[in-house]
């Protein structure tokens, strides 16, 4: 605690009259020192002053151990009542009959509808449609052929792995989820992009959604809608709409003012201004928003398999229950393939925007005709498929990879698990890591007086932001205590911190390597792509096999999940450093290490801070999933609540996770977000 107080509270500025005991000279010196002190130090001093007043009071009143019970509120009772009410009334209450059930039935119909279209097209039709779509998005040119090849590979892969049907179901769910997300996100983004007050109101909501681990809010949807596609769909929309809203607002807000002014000077009405200038100018951001929404939706559709979403996620989840890594991978790879296909297609479309047509290389076709060709091609493929009776993916055209994957997995585990000379083996590492790092960290956190942790968070949040930031972070942490999950929250926090430290160490090291050695980056890129899109469930089993049930396994899974983003951000940050500064350093004879330490890393600071922030959000998301492999604490509570439909446990844990996310976000978010990415 005392380390937090840099010095005694500042003497009052308008205090002793000149000539008082301190004398004018001393006083002006003090004043000068005060004004010389950075605003940061001044704020910390103020916080310290506040603490000196409040802490003894709080400590005497409520003690200095874990969160005092008197300050808790029992929410599980009312929540259980609510849950009971929902169960009793969801077939009779008008709220359900006239509103929620309509949503539910409409979404089921929509998903079924899209699925039957995909099913009706048959695999030749769907593949042709996807390939031609990719080709059109790629500009119907030679560059488009590359995108088309990716599409072909993706769909062939789905079929070959025997996952055609689940893939179509996932695609159907995705189509509906993305469509709804885009509409909702666009409407919100439009409102926020055009109106300051809406933007101000919406921004904190979107910020919060961004740190919300998807797992944390599945439960209420299950309760209201039951399992199946409606709950999955709505959870997905909530997860996937924010990036669309953010980027739409950003695009509208950042539209080149000179163009808007020119448009206004020609007498454009506000409608013309929006439709003819603002929206076209924001096309790039809109497409980026679509891209991100698709990626988020895809990852969520997999997570939603836990609540009966069906499709590929369900296959992965089922394979998990029989501990069949091979089968899980066979279902996981199509997810990666679909992700790559959709990513490249939207990316190609995005790149074409703004790129003038002549610079686009030879065009085979352009505009309308290309789309017509795509439509005709799909129809032909569909007809051929129908005639040949090839609606189902041919059973003979599949490859069973699960056997070889499983034996490879087993071999790896056997060799790494224990008995590696000198190094010990993963099991030993895990146990040492738990005993020497995790346990002490958890014990320190759980043993520290509750008010000291609040102060620490406030100070950290002040260091990176302003008073509002600090207040928000402190309130969020206090909320976990009020909810009665103080101990579990700190347990989870210790896991997040350990995972974060590991992720940053590894991520920054690999990032530096990738930024400096060209081929490392080239090799890493596809690996990172796969790691980022592969459903987390797939690697839970190998992780347990290697590290045993427990927190070490959960942390490993979290590191594996968060690492790609950290590596990528670090690499980009380092590579983007001003070449002139680097050249200047080189001309002064700086060695490679000196360049890195003195120029690149300091200049890449914003990127590194962003990496920390992203790392926090991602790590937190998986530590929850870690509840499935023995991570315990809040993650287990969420899983428990979800599988038992226990709102009292699950929702409270979910809320605590959200609070923890807010705390971590506030203390790592470098400045107030100006740019949204």
């Amino acid at each position, binding site marked *: 605690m005392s380390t937090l107080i840099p010095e005694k509270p500042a003497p009052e500025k308008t205090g002793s009259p000149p000539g008082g005991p301190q004398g004018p000279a001393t006083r002006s010196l003090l004043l000068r020192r005060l004004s010389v002190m950075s605003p940061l130090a001044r704020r910390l001093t103020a916080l310290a002053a506040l603490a000196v007043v409040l802490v003894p009071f709080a400590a005497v009143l409520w003690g200095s151990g874990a969160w005092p019970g008197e300050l808790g509120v029992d929410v599980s009772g009312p929540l259980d009542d609510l849950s009971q009410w929902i169960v009793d009334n969801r077939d009779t209450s008008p709220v359900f009959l006239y509103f929620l059930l309509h949503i539910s039935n409409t979404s089921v119909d929509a998903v079924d509808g899209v699925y039957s279209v995909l099913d009706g097209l048959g695999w030749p039709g769907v593949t042709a449609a996807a390939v031609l779509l990719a080709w059109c998005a790629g500009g119907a040119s030679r560059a488009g052929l590359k995108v088309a090849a990716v599409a072909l590979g993706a769909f062939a892969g789905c079929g070959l792995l025997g996952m055609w049907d689940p893939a179509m179901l996932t695609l159907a769910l995705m189509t509906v989820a993305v469509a709804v997300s885009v509409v909702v996100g666009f409407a919100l983004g439009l409102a926020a992009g055009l109106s300051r007050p809406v933007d101000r109101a919406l921004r904190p909501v979107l910020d919060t959604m961004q740190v919300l681990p998807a797992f944390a809010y599945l439960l209420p949807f299950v309760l209201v809608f039951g399992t199946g596609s409606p709950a999955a769909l709505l959870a997905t929309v909530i997860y996937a709409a924010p990036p669309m809203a953010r980027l739409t607002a950003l695009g509208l807000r950042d539209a*080149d003012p*000179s*163009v*808007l*002014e*020119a*448009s*206004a*000077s*020609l*007498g*454009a*009405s506000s409608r*013309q201004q929006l439709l*003819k*200038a603002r929206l*076209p*100018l924001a*096309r790039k951001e809109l497409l980026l928003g679509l891209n991100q929404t698709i990626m988020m939706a895809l990852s969520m559709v997999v997570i939603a398999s836990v609540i009966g979403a069906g499709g590929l996620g369900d296959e992965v989840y089922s394979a998990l229950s029989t501990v069949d890594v091979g089968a899980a991978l066979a279902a996981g790879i199509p997810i990666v393939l679909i992700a790559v296909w959709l990513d490249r297609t939207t990316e190609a479309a995005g790149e074409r*925007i*703004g790129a*003038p*047509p*002549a*610079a686009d290389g030879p065009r085979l076709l352009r505009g309308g005709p290309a789309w017509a060709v795509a439509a005709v091609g799909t129809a032909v493929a569909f007809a051929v498929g129908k005639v040949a009776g090839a609606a189902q993916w041919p059973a003979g055209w599949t490859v069973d990879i699960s056997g070889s994957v499983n034996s490879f997995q087993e071999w790896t585990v056997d060799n790494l698990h224990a008995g590696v000379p000198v190094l010990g083996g993963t099991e030993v590492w895990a146990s040492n890591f738990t005993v020497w790092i995790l346990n002490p960290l958890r014990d320190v956190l759980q043993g520290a007086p509750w008010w000291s942790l609040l102060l620490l968070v406030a100070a950290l949040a002040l260091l990176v932001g302003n008073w509002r930031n600090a207040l928000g972070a402190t309130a969020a942490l206090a909320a976990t205590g009020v909810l009665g999950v103080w101990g579990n929250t700190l347990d989870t926090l210790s896991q997040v911190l350990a995972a974060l430290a590991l992720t940053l160490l590894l991520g920054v090291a690999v990032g530096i390597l990738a930024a400096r050695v060209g081929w490392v980056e080239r090799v890493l890129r596809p690996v990172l792509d796969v790691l980022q899109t592969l459903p987390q469930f797939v690697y839970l089993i190998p992780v347990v096999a290697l590290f045993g049930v427990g927190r070490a396994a959960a942390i490993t899974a979290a590191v594996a999940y968060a690492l790609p983003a950290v590596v990528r951000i670090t690499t980009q940050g380092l590579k983007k450093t001003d070449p002139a500064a680097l050249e200047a350093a080189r001309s002064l004879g700086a060695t490679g290490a000196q360049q890195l330490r003195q120029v690149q890393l300091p200049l890449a600071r914003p990127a590194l801070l962003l990496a920390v922030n992203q790392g926090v959000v991602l790590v937190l998301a998986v530590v929850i999933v870690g509840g499935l492999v023995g991570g315990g604490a809040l993650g287990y509570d969420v899983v428990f609540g979800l599988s038992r439909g226990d709102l009292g446990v699950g929702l409270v844990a979910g809320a605590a996770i959200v609070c923890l996310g807010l705390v971590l976000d506030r203390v790592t978010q470098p400045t107030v977000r100006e740019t949204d990415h």
Partner: protein
Amino acid sequence: MSTTLSKEPAREPAPEPTGAPPVFSIRKLWKVFGPKAERVPDSELADLPADELRRSTGCTVAVRDVSFDVHKGEVFVVMGLSGSGKSTLVRCLTRLIEPTAGTLEIDGEDVRAMDKSRLRELRRHRAAMVFQHFGLLPHRTVLDNVAYGLEIQGLGKLERRALAMKVVTKVGLEGMEHRRPAQLSGGQQQRVGLARALAVDPEVLLFDEPFSALDPLIRRDMQEEVIRLHREEGRTMIFITHDLSEALRLGDRIALMRDGEIVQCGTPEEIVAQPADDYVRDFVRDVPREQVITVRTAMRAGACSGPDHPGALAPDTIVATAIEIVARSGAAACVVEDGDCLGVVDHENLLAVVAGIGSERAAVS
């Protein structure tokens, strides 16, 4: 002598106030940015120094009590350094920025009283603007950018494209109509901006530092282009610039702004020959005076040396030309207008102009 010095503009016939109202008539116009801006104009607050005003009220005066008329067919240049309020002023004319106080008329119609649709009408048909940063739509072709104003007016696709094509040709961009702005050079992009403004056939063209972002050579080309267009069409133009030589080249009259106020308004010759204060004098110090000042200013009153008017210079001949003639003939030259002798210029008069002592002499006399 001093009577003949003023009033007459350099090149064009005098747009003397006739029966017709001026195209733009601006009286006591104010633009104040900040909270409760309307309390500042004409109050004692307005007399505060800028930083004090900002500290006490949070307001900044961008345009301060400005009055001037712009006549039909005239090129009216507003010149000043950055921050002088000239760009704000030109935006006030079509209420892209809402003025705080004062009156503002176009063809005698009160612009500040216009409702939304009337104002839109004004922007669509009567005044079009060319911007420093072009403001082109990057996703549209040159042709569709030029047609944009027509599109906003609600013209059909074929019609507006046909009209736009004519303007594209007029500004010398034929053959490039299907390119995108990003594929054009800066000069070409500004030609598109110019064409877009011309396409709606406005009564007045407003230029906001249109050539500041261009290379010097291209800038000169574009200035020629504007001069050519003006000669061909005689359209009224209001031209904002921070470049004195540009102002002198283009302007029939120049308003020189400083800190939101017009410090001097007059012909280029007046500005150069008779700076209103030290600020203006400092501004025009390096101008090659013999290129701006005409013999009408340089001459002394007096009879010609003969009825055949030796030399016979027109009154708007610039001094540089007169020097050549006088140097060749070795004698004073007559200044003649409509067969009447107005006065004489000799070595002494001309040298005084070059030396920069002409203005003092004019002021003394």
